[in-house]
């Protein structure tokens, strides 16, 4: 099986193929535009510094100004990123009740014990229960393009940012109308300012467990530094992307990250066929491909020198 006639050409061919794919991947990746804006507010010159220094004010709003030099091709995706945030922690990740989240009213009354310590509050069941839901990200963003000193709202599309299966299969609201009644005798998660059924006041269907932002949050990240989709920019004047110009990102700063040395970022990115920007894959393909070619030459030399099969 490991004869010279298979191994040496095999390595060579694989090497060449890898180099080809690597080049393609790298070019693709380089064509993707990414813009990251840190708004943690730890530095004094940061506009959000005021929101992190006492006295802590509710509904602190800070504005980040930035400039786009070349056309940011659409569709543009707007993400928020958190670092040093262990959504991958086992207990944290398990702290939810799938039955409750799929709309089973039985579990509205007695949430799963996994949700502890966010199972009951004041003797009433928490819906949605558990740490994961409780810690839902609650900063909100508004993007303005500044045209001649005037702020022009860039329309955000918040629909369809969650997985289709999460929205249609996995998470279900109880079959109640109005939805609010299903939540009778329950309390909202302790860190939430609004109950689940009133997350989106502008769209009645985007509430409860199928609220898009909630769904995105509930799909917990595998790694401690992660990025979650917040909105898409697909409409109106911005259908083809963000034109050159000055922009202002208005952040309603609610989510504390300083306590665990985390950072918060707002990220604009577009995508290609291979998804978001990722240089690693292209480089890895190039390196491995080259190594395969080198190995095939090394093996050729070894084979020429020793020629084991013939010396016996």
């Amino acid at each position, binding site marked *: *099986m*490991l004869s*010279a006639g298979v*191994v040496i050409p*095999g*390595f060579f061919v*694989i090497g060449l193929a890898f180099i080809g794919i690597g080049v393609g*991947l790298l070019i693709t990746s380089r064509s993707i535009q990414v813009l990251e804006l840190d708004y943690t507010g730890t530095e004094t010159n940061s506009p959000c510094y005021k929101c992190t220094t006492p006295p802590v004010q509710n509904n602190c709003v800070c504005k980040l100004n930035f400039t786009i030099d070349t056309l940011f091709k659409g*569709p543009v*995706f707007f*993400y928020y990123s958190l670092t040093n945030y*262990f*959504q*991958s*922690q*086992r207990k944290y*990740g398990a702290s939810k*009740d*799938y*039955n409750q*989240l*799929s709309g089973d009213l039985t579990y509205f009354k007695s949430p799963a014990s996994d949700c502890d310590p966010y199972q009951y509050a004041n003797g009433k069941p928490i819906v949605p229960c558990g740490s994961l839901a409780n810690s839902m990200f609650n900063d909100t963003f508004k993007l303005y393009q500044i045209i001649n000193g005037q702020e022009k709202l860039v329309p955000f599309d918040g629909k369809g*940012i969650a*997985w*289709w*299966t*999460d929205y249609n*299969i*996995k998470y279900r609201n109880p079959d109640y109308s109005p939805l609010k009644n299903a939540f009778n005798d329950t309390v909202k998660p302790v860190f939430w300012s609004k109950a689940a059924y009133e997350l989106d006041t502008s769209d009645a269907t985007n509430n409860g467990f199928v609220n898009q932002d909630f769904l*995105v949050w509930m*799909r917990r*990240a*595998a*790694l401690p*530094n*992660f*990025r*979650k*989709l917040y909105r898409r920019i697909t409409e109106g004047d911005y259908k083809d992307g963000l034109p050159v110009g000055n922009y202002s990102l208005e952040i309603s700063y609610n989510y504390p990250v300083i306590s665990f040395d985390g950072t918060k970022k707002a990220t604009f*990115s577009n*995508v*290609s*066929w*291979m*998804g*978001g*920007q*990722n240089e*690693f*894959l292209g480089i*890895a*393909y190039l390196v*491995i491909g080259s190594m*395969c070619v080198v*190995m095939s030459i090394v*093996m050729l030399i*070894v084979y020429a020198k*020793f020629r*084991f099969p013939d010396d*016996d």
Partner: protein
Amino acid sequence: MNNRKEPYQRRKQREGGHLHLFTSNSFLSEEPEGNIFPSPSLLCCCHTGVKVKDGIWSFLLSQLEKKEKKQEEERLLRANDRGFNLSFQYANNAIRTSKYNIFTFLPLNLFEQFRRLANAYFLFLLILQMIPQVSSLSWFTTAVPLVLVLSITAAKDASDDINRHKCDKQVNNREVEVLIDGELKKEKWKDVQVGDIIKLENNEFVTADLLLLSSSEPLNLVYVETAELDGETNLKVKQALTVTGEMGDSTEALATFNGEVRCEPPNNCLDKFKGTLTVNGQAYSLDNDKVLLRGCVNASLSSFLTFWSYVIVLNTVVPISLYVSVEIIRLGNSFFIDWDRKMYYPKNDTCSSKNHHTLNEELGQIKYIFSDKTGTLTQNIMTFNKCSINGKAYGELCDFSGQRIEITEKTPRVDFSWNQLADPKFIFHDHSLVETVREGNPEVQSFFRLLALCHTVMPEEKKDGELFYQAQSPDEGALVTAARNFGFVFRSRTPETITIMEMGRKVVYELVAVLDFNNVRKRMSVIVRSPEGKTTLYCKGADTIIYERLHPSCRDLMKVTTDHLNMYAGDGLRTLVLASKDLDESYMQEWRKRHNEASTALDGREERLEELYEEIEKDMTLLGATAVEDKLQDGVPQTIEQLAKADIKIWVLTGDKQETAENIGYSCNMLREEMNDVFIVAANTAEGVREELRSARRKMCPDAAEQPSVSTSRSGLFWLKKTQTVQDEKVDGEYAMLINGHSLAFALEEDLELELLRTACMCQTVICCRVTPLQKAQVVQLVKKYKQAVTLAIGDGANDVSMIKAAHIGVGISGQEGMQAVLSSDFSFAQFRYLQRLLLVHGRWSYLRMCKFLRYFFYKNFTFTFVHFWYAFFCGFSAQTVYDEWFITLYNTVYTSLPVLALSLFDQDVNDRWSSQYPQLYAPGQQNLYFSKKAFMNLTAFSCYSSLVLYFVPWAAIHDTVRDDGKDIADYQSFALFAQTCLLIVVSIQMCLDTYHWTAVNNLFIWGSLATYFAVTFTMYSNGIFVIIPSAFPFVGTERNTLNLPNVWLTIILTSLLCILPVVAYRFIVMQIRPTINDKVRHRARKEPPPAPAPRRPARRVSTRRSGYAFAHSKGYGDLVTSQRFLMKRPVKSRVMLFSHITPAET
């Protein structure tokens, strides 16, 4: 796994078998309770064991076992006095080999099973998994297989125990005639008491130790078969004391017999017995000659923990599927052995079979083979093969050009139908000899006349013309039978006469004297007077001895005969030279007178007789030479040669005498003339043995240190077991060692055993002769203890049972000697030569497969587990699993179990032909290269590398990226699916890389498992199943959102190749630079057709070394019959007298 010989450990039996009848004593001195008898199944097979050949009366001395353990100085018992004997509370005679009864079965069996570490470990895991805080997996993943394993084992144990109960019942209820209150009553063996007098009939078994009182035979003799003690199938003669013998068959006399026996308590010494019998105030000493001792074995099979179980216990990543898989692989591989047509022996319809749950991978690691001789290497058939008469060789067939023709089964045989008394079983191929003898050639006739006269064989003519010979040695029987077929039929004998039929004419010779055989004389003569009144001395003996005593006129004939002898020796035949001498009547008269005087002399009797013999046995005329073949089993020399090439050392342990053993050593190529030296250790003192061993060692290896280098290391579970290893020492040249049982007894003492081991291990060949079953086991244990090598013992008789059980692997030859060896062995087959296939093919494959299995298994599980370790840094060390819980459950049981099973059942590096052709392929197994510490480190390092790739490549590829629709992909569920898919693909490709031998099953399992993975994944992540139980299948939709992305697949390809390509490159380069023997053979096997099996017959050689004169070992019956008194008192009734008496002086 560590208790494969467990059923035997508890009952440290004496598998020596049933004892001799009349002997006394049970030897198991150390066992506190329970009973001994041979392995239970052994009791069921009734055609073996010590058998009584004649009806006898005997006196039960002691039962099998004592009930309570107290220091017993002496045993005292009285015949016909149950009350007296009962007061000593000797144990009763019932045997119990079963372990359980209905009520104790469940608790005891479970207890036994949980003593196995693997079971206990999994029980512990199960308990852990039931604690919700600790467990990350459901408890039934461990419980279901564990319960399955436990119940299968319990069922097997139960059926074994039911068989034991049946056997015990059968043995205990066997009936025997016991003399109670003056009447013979049928009693069950279990109810027989110490001190009872019992009557045994011909061919009965004996289930207690007995003292012989009297016999229906003349001279109070009894013939017993002792095959279970020393492997010799010829009958042994034992004799009762005169004082008891006088009672004869009289029930009244026996009923009033009130003898008291005082004897030593049960011990395990085979060759000594001390006791006295007191009858009517007169004490008679009972020694070993009067009483037969039965063999026993007290083989303490040290319970060992195998490496595998150690691995199992120490590794927390080991799942129960490993345990189950290992069992399946063993089972599978042993079925392959069972089914092997090439190990099937059509002659007696025996195929190879496997008895116990063995570690058959150990078959691929054998370093030492301990083999029995008789019945294993040899067929225990002596045939008169060739002879040289008056300078002419007979027995060989030549074609026209004078080339020797090989004799096969198809070669036409000589027709002996002209001789009505001929033995139909006798086979001879050379017609010229018959023609010559029928022509009346005087030399040929006197040659056969000698064979018919000069021996101590006893004839038995039950029906007219149906002759049976009872010979003390089979060689002698073969010679007399040859003479019989060639027209010189030994018919009967009395003390004074020998009657033979000479070419149909009855001739009665007067037997003047028998000049008996002994070890110094190495010859035997008879002086007979023919009816014509001619007195002749006939002598047969070892060539060197006879040659010195020949008349000078025979010189020319001697030369020719010597050539023939050399040829015979080269063929491994046992030779004897025959000579005769006509005696002058007057000289004879005078010699007889002196002979009478000498034999009655009080001092110097031996010497004076010796002188007389010397005097008369000279100036003899050479008649010729005989060659008797101790028939080897088919293919023995070739097998031994191949095994030797595989660097397996073969030690022969035989109960036979030294000469026979040596002869067989030569004929099966274990001893060769080219060897630098063959040491013979036969000293009679400990010091002498030490000196002989030392000098042999110094000769072989002058530079070696005086003290052996013993390296002590620890192994086993938690390194608790201390092991001592004596290192192998390099020796230039080839040496061999022969040691007899007597010296071996000294050499096996604690202070000499290392000396013995060192010297023996330097030798190419070691032959131990005259060894007891116990010594056989001790030798095996010595090697096991200090060499840490895997040992195999092969034998066919009950006397081999001990060593078969002592060795790691026991192989039984299912031959003529009964079933004990087979029943206690791990493997059994009909022919020694199958050992080659068993070891070099099946053993090697099994080892290879088991190692491959373990390496692969650990690789896949280490890789699997290490990924969790890397992920720990990214999940806050929270024990978050990387993979889906379902995947974890199914990984070992469904996704990867079948391919690795297929690999470890069917894989072979080269096929069977190549395997047997190149025994060198076996060597890596002996050094355990395929699963050594180094190999284990390598695989751990490689797993580590693989896990790094498997974690960090997917990590780097998706940690900051998103799907092509901008949605999340770096979420936990996607990452889990991603990582597990990579893992499974990588281990599957690795499996393909490790598979040498592709079968349809391999393909089916590998690709089937991958397909199953995707099918199961898609099902479990589907909407339908989520809706049914939302909390069990939270991964809904993950596969649809992840596996449709090109960059995910690109990453999977990258990961797989990054794991696999370095292995390919490494293996390729290593194979080029340093190819192993396997690589070379495999390369050849690809190019060439498989080699044809090697031809059977070895080339002929001529040897100057001759061996094995065909006499019995002991002095024979001479002494027994010198006592005229017996003859007087018990006149022969229906039978012909057994022995001649040669010294009428005592009358």
